[in-house]
């Protein structure tokens, strides 16, 4: 495919930004996002940091309402404001802080260098236009490609995401596609301009299990081809175990654990991660009981004092409700926000 030639953009002249090719692909640092609502300030993200390298897959894991999607929207720059505000932090793409960019540059960057796919591809495609038209539109908006040319690219892309008979399907409307095909079309749309970073927000949640696997395989294959960095937002631990390199576990808008997926899964360093893993059904536990995490996720308007997880934590001590544990390195490349990280790590070993 690669229709891209670096720096070539129809939005003309917007692009000579100081990208540093040696800088990390995407570096999010101390991201704070809050929503100012009538009832008070909801801190949806407080101090999220991570780094994404090329060809790497980073999974952002957490329950509903833990701030996963908000962190992605913040990085994309598509938070509705008001009521949402990024109050602190930076998101650097190859060294360029996207939060500092003026709107036109930022917009030109979306789709071009960083793209996103959504949970429900049915609602993420405009129902009144044919799928091919919508893909072609991406080219036309960013590159000013002619209609005919853009349409040709659209067919190529549909083919590339393995939609059979792309030539005929290019004129079909979203509702004529199955769920899996819609998600493929969505992926085609977001990959149209060869972005370096793709954020996939629960890309398989709305699909049935066999299709989920196909979509994940497709994403991996495309990642191998394009060397893009992939941020996978999900609550499906099975998916993460299979495809992600590293994971960032979020709870109540905060990062609680961060590190290579394999190590985290084998030996979690935070009681919340441990709880998540214990609540998955495994074949070898047949007949046994699952251990759920008691209680429910906190209301982000009233985040508990100290460690946000302490009311639900099995290992809590007095200090937990008083002092918020900082993110501290536990092992090389791993960090955990728990006063008793070492003890939890030791627990997992048994």
């Amino acid at each position, binding site marked *: 495919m690669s229709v891209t030639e670096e720096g070539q953009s129809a939005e003309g002249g917007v692009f000579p930004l100081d990208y540093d090719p040696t800088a990390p692909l995407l570096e999010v640092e101390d991201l704070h996002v809050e929503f100012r609502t009538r009832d008070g300030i909801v801190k949806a993200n407080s101090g999220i940091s991570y780094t994404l390298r090329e060809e790497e897959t980073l999974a952002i894991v957490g329950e509903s309402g833990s701030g996963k999607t908000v962190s992605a929207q913040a990085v994309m720059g598509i938070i509705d404001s008001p009521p949402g505000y990024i109050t602190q932090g930076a998101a650097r793409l190859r060294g360029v802080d996207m939060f500092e960019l003026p709107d036109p540059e930022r917009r*030109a960057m979306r789709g071009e260098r960083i793209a996103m796919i*959504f949970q429900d591809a049915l609602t993420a495609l405009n129902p009144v236009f044919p799928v091919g038209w919508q893909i072609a*539109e991406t080219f036309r908006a960013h590159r000013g490609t002619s209609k005919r040319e853009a349409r040709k690219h659209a067919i190529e892309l549909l083919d590339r995401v393995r939609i059979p008979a792309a030539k005929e399907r290019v004129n079909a409307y979203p509702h004529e596609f199955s769920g899996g095909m819609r998600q493929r079309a969505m992926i085609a749309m*977001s990959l149209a301009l060869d972005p370096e970073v793709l954020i996939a927000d629960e890309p398989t949640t709305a699909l049935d299990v066999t299709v989920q696997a196909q979509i994940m395989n497709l994403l991996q294959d495309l990642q191998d081809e394009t060397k893009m960095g992939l941020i996978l937002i999900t609550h499906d631990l099975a998916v993460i175990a299979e495809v992600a390199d590293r994971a960032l576990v979020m709870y109540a808008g905060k990062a609680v654990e961060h590190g290579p997926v394999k190590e985290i899964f084998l030996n979690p360093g935070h009681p919340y991660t441990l709880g998540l893993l214990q609540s998955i059904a495994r074949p070898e536990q047949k007949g046994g009981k699952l251990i759920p995490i008691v209680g429910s996720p906190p209301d982000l308007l009233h985040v508990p004092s100290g460690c946000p997880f302490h009311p639900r934590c099995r290992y809590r001590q007095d200090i937990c409700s008083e002092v918020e544990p900082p993110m501290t390195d536990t092992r090389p490349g791993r960090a955990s926000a728990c006063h008793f990280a070492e003890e939890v790590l030791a627990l997992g070993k048994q």
Partner: protein
Amino acid sequence: MSDSQGQGPEHEGQQPQTSLEVAELVELDDVQGISGASLWSDAWKQLRTSPVFLISLGIIILISVMAIAPGLFTNADPRACDLSNSLVRPSADHWFGFDLQGCDYYARTIYGARISVSIGLTVTIFAGLLAVVMGSLAGYYAGATDSVIARLTDIWFAIPTILGAIVILSLLGTRGFFQVSFVLVILGWPTMLRLYRSSVLSVKELDYIEAARALGASDFRILSKHILPNAIAPVLIYAAITVGVIISAEAALSFLGVGLQLPAISWGLMISGAQTRILSAPHLLLFPGLFLSVTVFGFILMGDSLRDALDPKSR
């Protein structure tokens, strides 16, 4: 969801004619013509077989032809009057009889369609444009822009249309097509604006708007290509009804003596002229009144059938 529809070339060129924008947007598409079904082609498919729609379409076409080419319907000159024919009742030669001035009443009724229909359409189009532009700004940008526009609309909404029009028009010396249309546009936009604003508010929350933003679409592109075609339906429906309402408003203003002025030929003026002779010459009231009612009825019926076709909930 809309039902599946046969694909194939027979759908080419049969895009809904209900709105210019839509026709254009759909045409933008394509080198090879579109198959399959969108909301609009689905609606068109339903409309084609709806008797209510066909009846209303028939009425509107008939009245429009009358407005564009009255010569097709009558050879008589509506301004060639002979006082000796004053108030002559309808006869085989002169179906609608004569008015006080001895003018052929059939010819005058036919010629009266032009101004009524053009005021109805002009006012609706301009009020609609105003509503779409302001509604887009208010609905999409929320915050202060929305507050200002929405409050302004609320205040404006409180001005009664007919009373407001009477006050403004009675201040004007000459009252022709332009003045009457202008006043009706000024007073007529708030409802459509509210409608479009609320429609934009619900559409802009949808994932495909966010997806378009995530792919770097500009606000103008999002508003014109993603929001407009998905949010315009309620306004189109209301616009069809509005044409009828405006036509009757114009007639009411002319009847009250603050609308169009003689020598303009309009149904409102004709009804106004009939008011003192309702018993002695009932045909003066009957014919323009009938034409007015049928026209208004046609547009309202059109709005109704558009609603049935475009509102997925009514399926």
